[in-house]
């Protein structure tokens, strides 16, 4: 078609057809009717036709290879490359998204039950602590905490569990480990773990758990929980001290030294049982057993990765996990994608059979009792920017998606009752919305060491309470979090034992209960509190000077400006001048460490669903300045501390609730924090992704997911038909522009000066 048009266009120009009429220097190449031009246009058209014809029925914008269509795969994305995939070091949600599918610690959180409940994973049952006194004599479970010298946890390992196929376990004909003495020649041509031809496996044993716990103590592995475990596991600190000189040795020698080292408080009783001796009473220890830190590690893997030449190829344990879980990491390119594939050696865990009332009706127990995992593969693609991530989700190329602020209005509308619902566009695509309150808190803290906003005098308390009323967090959540937050009445979020719903759970110093809901106290009450505190109208009654407070803000982008301006306005309601001292996160941490700030905003994500994990943020001996702990406000109320010491040893129940209530009352009265809000997670998923249930404590949820691949493929094709007319349009435009241009060139060349 293009050729035909070209011929038509150049018909009035007879010069080209007659070579004898060509002038010197005239290049036939520019003649639109020349064979070269025709050939060029034909090639262009042919290429376009081939492109159109060669693409089959698959959508053109499908980012995945054709071979993956209809495969039982979950597609999702990640925005931050994981820093560590060694369970001894990893301590962030980004990393757990991969790690928790590969490694299996002794315990896990039940998927559906609330409050969160521990159930066995690589152990056969949830261990019960056995108490002993200083002489090693057993004590009853009801023994007072001060009598308990040690708590013994006897953990029985699930029999028949095998590690994923891995070269570290490969054996030669003689039965020796094949890849444990690699030379430079052996490593020639090896660039990835998959380049090793042979793999092997072996059964999980108690020794693998013991070895991993010893790894936690190894100074060269920099485990973030080494400091915590020193306080709790018998002999942990001593082992760390003994291993310190080994840190300078080569990696293989370090592994051998670690294998040979003895950790007093941890021992393998038999091949499938090990005991952990915890100092004193520490009921929260069971929660640690559900974290990847305590997942088993085969020594063969560490020896394998420690060999010379492996690190230079980035084939390291920190990058290639070796576990017993339902999946194994088969492609590790954090700059592009991470691929988890079904572990053929997985032991066959089944979908939980218990759920909350309504779960069965909601279809969440349809797969109860069926062996997991349900998918063969999960592909995580790196998406640093929100726009392409969101569009690929809408095109059906990601099965689920978070919700950025930019896309919020397109996807969700907030009803008059404050409840979220999907927009018509999302509903028409069958997209489903899942919301859940995170087990975390975002708060505004006062530095209790500061002479103005800190301290425990009534004047200081009243000042902090006045500010607590003035800073309208409902507005903050509405403006800056698209309503994705539940206003906090104290440090404990929902889902954590100790949290109270309703009137009994409100902070009476800031809220009143009206018409069945908490209502923020009037600003006039805050101004009265300011007068009582000695700052009428925001001025110091003694000196007459305006009260000025420094706000330590981590603000690095232009988006932070509006947030800071809003915060300044909140303090202005009381006549307080808020001086914004914005800085980067490094400086902010330094100020917190030195206790030089006055007011700051920070947050906390729960390690485990126990009130101890939140209330310790206000525990005096955990103060940041004096003890380098996580209590950034340096709050230190002796009564609160005493109750904390009592509460942390108690089992959940009415007695513990009563203690927690007392602690909350003290904290609310002292107001070391503006309690801020508990963030709400909004996630969207397509109708073909099944068993998507938000569990904010469990990270190993991939095994529960199921995909309707036929529906996904049908909708992808339906949603992404290639629209080719723009291509023809471009071709026509080129023809329309180029041919007259060539004609003009030729005409201009042929024109005479006069």
């Amino acid at each position, binding site marked *: 078609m293009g050729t035909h048009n070209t011929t038509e266009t150049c018909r009035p120009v007879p010069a080209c057809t007659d070579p004898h009429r060509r*002038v010197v*220097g*005239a*290049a036939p190449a520019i003649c639109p009717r020349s064979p070269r031009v025709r050939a060029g246009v034909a090639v262009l058209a042919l290429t376009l036709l081939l492109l159109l014809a060669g693409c089959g029925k698959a*959508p*053109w*914008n*499908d*980012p995945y*290879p054709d071979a993956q269509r209809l495969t039982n795969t979950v597609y999702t994305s990640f925005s931050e*490359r994981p*820093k560590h995939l060694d369970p001894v070091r990893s*301590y*962030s949600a980004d990393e757990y998204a991969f790690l928790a599918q590969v490694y299996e610690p002794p315990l896990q959180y039940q998927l559906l039950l609330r409050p969160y409940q521990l159930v066995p994973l690589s152990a056969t049952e949830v261990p019960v602590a056995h108490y002993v006194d200083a002489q090693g004599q057993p004590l009853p479970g009801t023994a007072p905490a001060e009598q308990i010298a040690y708590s013994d946890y006897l953990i029985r390992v699930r029999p028949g569990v095998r590690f994923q196929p891995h070269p570290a376990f490969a054996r030669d004909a003689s039965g020796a480990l094949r890849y444990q003495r690699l030379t430079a020649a052996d490593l020639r041509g090896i660039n990835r773990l998959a380049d090793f031809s042979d793999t092997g496996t072996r059964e999980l044993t108690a020794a693998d758990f013991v070895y991993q716990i010893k790894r936690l103590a190894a*100074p*060269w592995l*920099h485990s*973030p*929980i*080494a*400091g*915590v475990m020193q306080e709790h596991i018998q002999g942990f600190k001593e082992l760390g001290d003994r291993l310190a000189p080994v840190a300078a040795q080569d990696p293989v020698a370090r592994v051998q030294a670690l294998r040979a080292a003895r950790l007093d408080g941890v021992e393998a009783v038999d091949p499938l049982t090990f005991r952990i001796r915890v100092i004193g009473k520490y009921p929260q220890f069971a929660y640690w057993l559900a974290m990847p830190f305590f997942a088993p590690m085969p020594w063969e893997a560490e020896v394998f990765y420690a060999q010379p030449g492996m*690190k*230079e*190829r*980035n084939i*390291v344990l*920190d*990058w290639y996990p070796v576990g017993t879980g339902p999946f194994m990491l088969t492609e590790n*390119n954090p*700059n*592009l994608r991470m691929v988890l594939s079904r572990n053929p050696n997985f032991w066959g865990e089944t979908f939980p059979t218990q759920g909350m009332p309504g779960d069965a009706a909601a279809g969440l127990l349809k797969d109860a009792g069926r062996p997991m995992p349900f998918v063969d593969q999960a592909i995580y*693609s*790196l998406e*640093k*920017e929100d*726009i*392409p991530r969101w*569009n*690929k989700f809408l*095109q059906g*190329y990601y099965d689920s998606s978070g919700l950025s602020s930019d896309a919020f209005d397109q996807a969700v509308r907030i009803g008059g009752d404050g409840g979220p619902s999907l927009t018509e566009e999302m509903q028409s695509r069958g997209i489903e919305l899942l919301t859940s309150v995170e087990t975390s808190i975002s708060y505004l803290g006062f530095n209790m060491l500061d002479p103005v906003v800190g301290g425990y005098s009534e004047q200081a308390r009243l000042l902090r309470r006045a500010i607590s009323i003035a800073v309208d967090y409902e507005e903050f959540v509405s403006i800056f979090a698209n309503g994705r937050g539940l206003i906090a009445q104290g440090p404990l979020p929902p889902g954590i034992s100790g949290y109270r719903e309703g009137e009994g759970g409100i902070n009476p110093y800031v809220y009143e209960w009206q018409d069945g809901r908490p209502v923020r106290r009037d600003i006039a009450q805050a101004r009265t509190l300011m007068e009582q505190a000695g700052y009428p109208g925001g001025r110091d009654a003694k000196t007459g000077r305006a009260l000025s407070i420094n706000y330590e803000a981590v603000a690095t982008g232009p988006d932070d400006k509006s947030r800071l301006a809003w915060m300044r306005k909140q303090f202005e309601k009381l006549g307080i001048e808020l001086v914004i001292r914005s800085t980067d996160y*490094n400086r902010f*941490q*330094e100020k917190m460490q030195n206790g030089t700030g006055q007011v700051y905003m920070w947050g906390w994500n729960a*390690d485990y669903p126990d009130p101890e994990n939140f209330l310790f943020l206000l525990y005096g001996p955990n103060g940041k300045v004096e003890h*380098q702990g*996580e209590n950034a406000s340096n709050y230190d109320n002796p009564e609160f501390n005493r109750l904390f010491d009592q509460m942390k040893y108690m089992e959940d129940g009415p007695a513990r609730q009563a203690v927690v209530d007392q602690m909350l009352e003290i904290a609310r009265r002292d107001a070391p924090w503006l309690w801020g809000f508990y963030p709400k997670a909004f996630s969207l998923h397509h109708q073909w992704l099944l068993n998507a249930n938000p569990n904010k404590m469990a990270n190993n949820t991939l095994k529960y997911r199921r995909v309707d691949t036929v529906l996904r493929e049908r909708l992808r094709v339906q949603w*992404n*038909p*290639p*629209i*080719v007319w*723009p*291509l023809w349009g471009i071709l026509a435009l080129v023809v329309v522009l180029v041919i007259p*241009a060539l004609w*003009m*060139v030729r005409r*201009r*060349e042929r024109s005479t000066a006069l």
Partner: protein
Amino acid sequence: MSAYILRRLLYAIPILIGVNLLTFVLFFVLNSPDEMARMQLGEKRVTPAAISNWKREHGYDQPLLFNESAQGLAKVTQTIFFQRSVRLFAFDFGSSDNGRAIGYDISQRMWPSLAIAVPVLLVGLALNISVALFIVFFRATYLDLGAVVLSVAMMSISGLFYIIGGQFLLSKLFHLVPISGYDTGFEAWKFLILPVIVGVIGGVGSGVRWYRTLFLEEISKDYVRTARAKGLTERRVLFRHVLGNALIPILTGVVVVLPLLFMGSLITESFFGVPGLGSYTIDAISNQDFAIVRAMVFLGAVLYILGLILTDISYTLVDPRVRLQ
């Protein structure tokens, strides 16, 4: 010429030391080893002992530039600067602060960067020169004026607009290409179409305007008048004479950027999900990974110097009057 190249290479040594020193000072003005350790160890439950342990293991427990407690030459050598810089000159980049081999990462990430940068350069060069010559052919006409206005308009638009606009039109609206992503081998082609188109179109405005200026400067010279006087067509004058003589400034701009193509483009790679080197340095700055920052700055400086030397050499190829001594 070899003596000239050798001399230029020797000049490069003090330049590289200076670049390295400047990078070092700028980095450590903003980041202390304690902060680096905190960043690597995570935010929760980091103890002072863990920080000092990390610093000791990574060699950040030494003084930055001068070790007063050491003796003799060790005052200089037992410092973070010396320990971290010497190996760079042997192109041994070592490991990043989180333990990955930097040389390996660079060798893996430079290919996707090149896969975009080379086509963008070549197609862009061909298109810009062709359009610029065409405009010059019609100089001082409304066509010329219109093209200049359009060029100015195009170069005034942010590169981000072309990226988002390209993604919206070609992927979201017309469903013709993937919106982002990458693959290895031949499968990569479908991911390269959009970034290459966007890269070429995004550079047309400034490119055409620049080349038009070069050609206009040449076209007013005596040799062009002579060429016309002997009866050559305008096309032959433009392609054979003007283009040939304008090659020196074109080469200045092109050859110097050739080695830097390895370094990739941050925004393009970020929006198109291309695993190139573009974001490597930026990510390292965000993560306070000094090992990567110094390696990439050093590599960038080396490549830039190499580009300048190649430019000088290329002069001798296109202009017989130039001699390197």
